[in-house]
């Protein structure tokens, strides 16, 4: 089981309390598709992903970015059992969506960077450490049911 300090719980909750899901979610997913273009393989039916401008303007990408970010709410509400919380989603990503679990880390790096850009100086090293710990637990849980 993952041990969370009071600082970590408060920090992570604080980040999500102030989160603009419809801005940060799309920004993170767009960044992932631009910086790591091989991730576009999972979005063949999303229409125009031809270049960065097209990706940033794509409404399906924006909608999906928001959906993914809200998916993190589950972990937020169940921080003491993230592994079990994502068991079903892990099976889905493995069996149905066939997503290489390395991609979860790529997306979480992009999300960290978008949050850093939004928070500026408030994204201190300790805040970054807490946030990245949270994301790495989620990433691990999402990869758990792969076989």
């Amino acid at each position, binding site marked *: 089981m993952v041990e969370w300090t009071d600082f970590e719980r408060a920090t992570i909750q604080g980040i999500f309390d102030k989160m603009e899901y419809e801005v940060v979610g799309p920004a993170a997913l*767009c*960044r992932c598709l*631009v*910086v790591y273009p091989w991730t576009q393989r999972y979005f063949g039916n999303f229409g125009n992903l031809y270049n*960065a401008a097209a*990706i*940033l303007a794509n409404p399906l990408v924006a909608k999906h970015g928001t959906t993914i970010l809200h998916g993190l709410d589950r972990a937020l509400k169940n921080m003491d059992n993230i592994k079990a919380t994502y068991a079903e989603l892990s099976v889905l990503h493995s069996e149905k969506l066939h997503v290489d679990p390395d991609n979860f880390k790529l997306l979480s*790096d992009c999300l*960290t*960077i*978008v949050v*850093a*850009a*939004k*928070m*500026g*100086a408030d*994204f*201190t*090293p*300790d805040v*970054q*450490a807490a946030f*990245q710990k949270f994301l790495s637990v989620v990433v691990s849980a999402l990869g758990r049911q792969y076989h």
Partner: protein
Amino acid sequence: MSLNETDKAVVRDVWAKISKSSDAIGTDAVGRLLTVYPQSKIYFSHWADLSPGSGPVAAHGKKVMKGIGLAVSKIDNLTDGLLDLSEKHAFQMRVDPANYKLLNHCILVVIASMHPKEFTPEAHCALDKFLTALALALSEKYR
């Protein structure tokens, strides 16, 4: 995943805009490396103070960014340009190359937080490619 001419132009352009704050970027990035990835502290056990913003951390951050500036100037041939630094890292310091990825990520986080407008997705992509190529050049002499 080698750097094309557009990547190089973007890297030079972004570096021109952020290099005046390179000391601050370096200090912040090294501080973050030690905080977010505490395993990296083993390379600095000889420092009196490993906390973010401390003297040794700031000095090292400055050194790292000087190396990055050098890499930007040698962007057309990073392997040859960074040969001396690679020897140093391989034989003297023996840094596990996995750590370059971690420091690269911290550098990108700092640039994002200090220069959000410049750090567009395209700039992010070019810089990520550049830092990855840099890490590879730095690992050249390892074996």
